[in-house]
């Protein structure tokens, strides 16, 4: 139960950051997005972030005291994450207010700041889990996996909305998504093989993963099927329509939820006796 809220919060917040960075970058690269669509996208990202933050509070024993979580920035990655995502929320809000005619430059600047804040926030989220007490996590992998989630979900989400709004075609979304999936697969493989031959706690984590049916389900739903879809469109240099993009997005999202669930539930902590 406590794990579910973290699974949801982390994936959702990473989706929001990935989407925000994508939106900012599209404008920065010169793509034209209508004010209405821009506002809609930004508001949706704000909403997703808000939902994520509320869900994260349910992980706490005493959610109404969560404001106190800002007090140990000097030591605690959780404190730092809370600050970052609070700032990120503010940045999205301010960014939203820039979606007016003629505010393009300001908007790109705010967008840059927000993108940096968001990315740093995702990194801090990952750093929370880099703990000696959790050998399978005690490396860069939590940070990498969290960033990959943002990379995997953000652009596809934004593309789905843009294509659905008939704003533009994104000819390279299939290639981009394909590359992201391959990075995800490679990172996971590398991590899994490293911990399989690592210390007892690490190899136990690996065993837990391989023994879980969710692991295999995730491979099919979160990687294989989306991979096939994007590969097809990339190979045939075809445009992806809204419904196919949304389908792919939903599968990727489901895959990330499953992967995150595995992340939290398979880890074996250092314990007395191991």
């Amino acid at each position, binding site marked *: 139960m406590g794990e579910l809220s973290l699974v949801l919060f982390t994936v959702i917040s990473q989706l929001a950051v990935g989407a925000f960075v994508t939106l900012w970058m599209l404008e920065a690269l010169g793509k034209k997005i209508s004010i209405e669509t821009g506002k809609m996208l930004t508001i949706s990202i704000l909403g997703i972030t808000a939902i994520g933050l509320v869900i994260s509070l349910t992980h706490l024993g005493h959610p109404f005291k969560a404001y106190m979580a800002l007090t140990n920035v000097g030591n605690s990655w959780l404190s730092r994450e809370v600050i970052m995502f609070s700032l990120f929320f503010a940045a999205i809000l301010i960014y939203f207010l820039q979606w007016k005619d003629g505010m393009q430059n300001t908007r790109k600047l705010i967008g840059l700041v927000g993108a940096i804040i968001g990315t740093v926030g995702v990194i801090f989220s990952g750093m929370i889990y880099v703990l000696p007490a959790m050998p399978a996590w005690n490396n860069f992998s939590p940070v990498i996996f969290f960033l990959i989630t943002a990379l995997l979900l953000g652009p596809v989400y934004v593309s789905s909305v843009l294509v659905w709004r008939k704003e533009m075609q994104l000819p390279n979304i299939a290639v981009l998504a394909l590359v992201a999936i391959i990075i995800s697969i490679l990172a996971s493989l590398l991590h899994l093989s490293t911990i399989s031959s690592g210390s007892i706690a690490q190899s136990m984590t690996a065993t837990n993963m391989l023994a879980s049916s969710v692991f295999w389900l995730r491979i099919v739903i979160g990687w294989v099927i989306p991979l096939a879809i994007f590969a097809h469109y990339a190979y045939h240099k075809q445009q992806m329509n809204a419904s196919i993009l949304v389908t792919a997005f939903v599968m990727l999202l489901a895959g990330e939820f499953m992967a995150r669930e595995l992340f939290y539930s398979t880890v074996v902590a250092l314990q007395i*006796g191991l």
Partner: protein
Amino acid sequence: MSEQWKISRRSFVKGTAAAGALAGVGYTTDFGFKGLKEVSAENAGVTEVFRNACPRNCYDTCAILTTVEDGVITRVSGNPDNSYTRGKLCVKGNSYTRTVYSPDRILYPMRQKGRGTGNWERISWDEAFTEIAENILKIKETYGSTLPICLDKYSGNFDVMHYGIEGTLSSIGYTTRATGTPCWPAGIDAQTFDFGTIVNNDPEDMVNSKFLILWGVNPAWCSVHSMYLIEEAKKRGCKIVAIDPILTATASKADMYIQIKPSTDGALALGMARYILDNELYDGDWMAQNSKGYEEFFGYVKNNITVEWAAEKTGIPVAVIEQLAYEYATAEPANIWIGYGMQRHTNGGTNVRAIDALAAITGNIGKTGGGAQYAQLETWAFNYHAMIFNPPEGSQGGADRPINMNNFGADVLAANDPPIKMMWLACRNPIAQDPETSVVKKAFEAMDFIVTADLYMNETVKLSDIVLPVTTPFESPGLNASYWHYWLNINEQAVKPLGETKNDVEIAMGLSAKLNELSPGSCTYPTSGDLDEWVEKECNSGLYKMFGVKDYKELKQKGTVKAVSNLVAWEKGDFRTPSGKYEFYSEEAESYGHHPLPVYVEEMATPKEYPFRCFTPHWKLNIHSQFQNLDWMEAINNKPFIEIHPKVAERMDIKNGDSIKMYNDLGYIVVPAKITGTISEDIVVVYEAWYKDKNFNVNYTTKAIPADMGAKATGMPGIAFHDNFVNIVKA
């Protein structure tokens, strides 16, 4: 391999569900206990400290200090005034606040509508007494006597006031009594034949030993205050040798551990005796002055025993036996602690005699730091005022009828002329603890009426008709002696009785009042009395003198006192045998059908179909069916298991945690496996305990095999609990 990881992996979030469900008895506790209480004594209203005593069937019988704040016990601790308790309690003692305040506690008299249905309804004490009295009077009318009423009571509470339970039954007429004792009688008889009765040295004297054999005893789990003394002895240069079929937590602390073949302890002792004889390491002077029959004994040893034979019998190499004998015989002084576990075999009593003989031939008896320690009842110099009442005028039957407590089920069913129709069970849980559980259950089924007096809804209470709620030691006064150390501990009433609980003496008084109301003169038990006064009535001048106090007032003021003399057993050589000497050759033993000398009696053979010997020793988190059921104890461990040797596990492809069915022709149990190299290949170990919500009772496989001795001192032979042969299979 992968399954193992799943069982032992720690989940990321350590969320635990609250333990301790309410028993299905339809009431709630009034005491809501707060966690993390950072309130100090000064902040609470009224804080008092009382002296209590742990009345359990345990060597240590601790002196307790109980802190009570605003009428609620907030903590217990050992009384530092008692040099044996040393201010420390064991894991069980420290859980006492849960014994008192457990939500499972029975607080009101209850009647079960349909025995075994779990359909309990609360009744008043008046209703309870009325129904019980009516049943008693009906039996009297039908059968002409109260012999069909059977009492099964033993060691649930050894506080002297609880002999009021026997008194209850004595006061209504002649009744049937479950006689004997399941745990230690073979050894008692053995020491009775040898010394005249059981007396041990003050255990605090153990620190003076230079060589100490722990023979089939596990003080680390069963007498932890003595374990401290053993470590003290070690510090002063004592060599500790542990002889045990199981490498216990105690044996793990010895200097040397000898893994003896079960039930062959007498052979080892006799083999050692042969070596001592051959090498003239015996104390001829002591034997000449203090013993009778040593020539016959040596004759037997010389003609029948060789060290090689002993090695073959016990599985211990010749060189080890010889070295052990040499070190034991030449150490000054050398001590042996004979455990009760060691004598729970068909040849247990005679094995104890052989070990006693070792102490005698080396002149280690009557010495500080020496001896053959087993138990003592010297300090129990009470009046037993709560117990001794005559049956009413005109009672029929002639005398109480004894049946074998150690073959309870079968004896109850076999009783005839008159048959047994009603049972009173207090301080005893035969459904959980007796061998041949199914036979005991059948005996229960044959009863018209069953009364239990108990704290919790245990297996015996679940099969009774009426349960009477009793007080814990903290809720009524009493007095406690130990069968090991030499302290006398006052037990004060620390808090008011919870709910409507009553002390067993109060129950006796209430029943007497009701009986006399319905049928004047049918019960001689007083119908009222002050419990504190009754405690004083247990004391006499002999008791006061023994403990060096002037009177009861001084005893109460001090709270815990130690005997002032006779702390080294048999120091004056004043043996209480017929000859007045230590008897190697005992005609008393002969009159009970045993060989007069401590000879070797063959151990029970292992049947082919049941190749494993199942030991059922005491567990560390309980005393029989007490304590393991408490929520704090369950947090430490909440399931039984079977210990299996690694080679056996390998042969049968058993892994840790695998479900194992242990069975014989009597019954079976199913428990998870725990693989350990601390036992031998031919045994399995299942610790006896009552787990509140588990369908576990190892006694489904335990037969009521009698030990060889016990009838002389206790009326019935003991039980060979550890001669239980079984087989195992993956379930």
